[in-house]
């Protein structure tokens, strides 16, 4: 395995983030830094990656593990290049999120929670993403895709596949 180390650019950003908090409170930077780590190291947080973040912030590895396992945006196992998160809470369900999940399952040939065999897509249902007025919707990386229809999903999948890029929440990052 290659050495785990942020790029110089990301490291500089980590230092800027740490400075937002008072002296000695560098642990506050943990959530933002874990986002950066997930974006830079293949979309998930492997144990060596979490250990690296712990060493950067000068905290114990357990302090990172317990946080990483609490928040739903951190992946503790590998995911496909594009993590497709479909909202399924009440307001989205009222406007047809079940059909959206069904359509995605059919198109991708996988069930909710699974990854396509080419490693391109992971399908996951999530809870309210604050987009209930434009339901049904899904999130992929930092982008929200709203007022979904089967046609819109088909063209989105096509677009994501052609680009072949890994989606990340940090796409439009600092």
């Amino acid at each position, binding site marked *: 395995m290659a050495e785990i180390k942020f790029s110089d650019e990301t490291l500089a950003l980590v230092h800027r983030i740490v400075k937002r908090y*008072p002296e000695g409170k560098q642990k506050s930077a943990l959530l933002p830094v874990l*986002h950066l780590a997930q974006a830079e190291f293949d979309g998930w947080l492997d144990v060596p990656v979490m250990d690296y973040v712990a060493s950067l912030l000068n905290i114990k590895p357990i302090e990172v593990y317990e946080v990483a396992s609490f928040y739903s945006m951190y992946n503790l196992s590998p995911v496909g290049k594009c993590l497709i998160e479909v909202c399924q809470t009440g307001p989205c369900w009222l406007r047809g999120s079940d059909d959206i999940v069904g359509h995605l399952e059919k198109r991708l040939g996988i069930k909710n929670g699974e990854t396509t065999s080419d490693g391109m897509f992971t399908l996951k249902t999530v809870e309210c993403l604050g987009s209930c*007025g434009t339901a049904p919707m899904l999130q992929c990386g930092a982008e929200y895709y709203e007022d979904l229809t089967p046609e819109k999903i088909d063209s989105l999948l096509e677009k994501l596949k052609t680009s072949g890029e890994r989606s990340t929440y940090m796409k439009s990052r600092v």
Partner: protein
Amino acid sequence: MGKQILLEHINVPGIHTFDVYRKTGGYASVEKALKTMTPDQVTEEVKESGLRGRGGAGFPAGLKWSFLDRKSDKPRYLVCNADESEPGTFKDRYLMEKIPHLLIEGMITSSYALGARTAYIYIRGEYMYIVRILEKAIEEARAAGFLGNNILGTDYSLELYVHPGAGAYICGEETALLESLEGKRGNPRLKPPFPAIAGLYACPTVVNNVETIASVVSIINISADKYNDVGIGKSTGTKLISASGHINKPGVYEIELGLPVEEFIYSDEYCGGIWKGRTLKAVVAGGSSVPILPASLILKTAKGEPRLMTYESLADGGFVSGTMLGSGGFIVMDETACIVRNLWTYTRFYHHESCGQCSPCREGTGWMEKVLHRIEHGHGHAEDIDLLVDIAKKIEGNTICPLGDAAAWPVASAIRHFRDEFEYHVKYPEKVKNPRHFEIEPMQSSYTLAGTVNA
């Protein structure tokens, strides 16, 4: 068009930029406060305005500010709650995305009042693209001298940062939010001490919702008196309502508090009526946590008075026949919606989001979800309905934070007003196995029609 205070300039092209925002009168509250008012005067003005917290609980903002420990020699913090994860709520997102400088301006004016030299905006991680928008706005404000050292040449200095969460509804609870901001799991703290005494890093801290802080801008600009003129009684000002579900025009609307619910649902200015020409069955008026009401009770109180969009009117009748304004997440259901399935999604949500510290919440939410799942999927028993009522009762009031109550209320109220739908599910298991059951064969709930209350 009703009174627009927060969204007055929302349609001005380029309003998200500093220059355009400034041209519409932006940052005037900072100039007025810093140059002509003492911090205490600003606090007093907010108190006078009657502004109530817009995050859900409706606690008077000025009063909360007055509790801040100003004698402590520790630094004081203002933290903006932009976690916005209550199902049905998306107004803060709209405000921050479209008019980010309104929040930045509110943060500066409010921080000045509180004597905070550092302030944070804690925003849910899923809104990462808005982090970018806010950071850009902060840079612009700094370049124009509204942030940083010696703002506008005064001796007041402020640093403002955006802090992303990472997916956890519970981090909207203010003490969980502070834990999260300290880089920990979002476990709510026992209160007291309240954040006003020991909040972020055990320092005096005020936590306010995005909309609350944005509202401070106009209170300072137009004065508390004038702000008081908007709205009715103790519900002063305007409120952003996130409208979703089975309506013709979902979206975010700024309403003057006091607007009749009926007008909000049916007027073309707002929701534009029920979609597909269908009829109204039920509304969850203030985000998923508040009690659901059948059509008859959301339009009129039990006494037969028109229900208004105010804290008081929505709560009229208590939990027997009323609800709460909450976060203003207005979720509308038409005649084909299944109350049981809708409720199951909420309960699944609360189970997923429980931090797990208290047994009644951790176990109770999971148990309710399981029972609701089996009723909805045609495997329920007659006793299950009372079992749900019993579990909800045992969670309520027995937990560290209000998430437990928030999980219990929807269950209790759905059964209170729509018990016959639960009974139908138990009685006709074959019919409800199709997830679209009420779309295929609508069921007229007797409680909806008669408006009777099965308390």
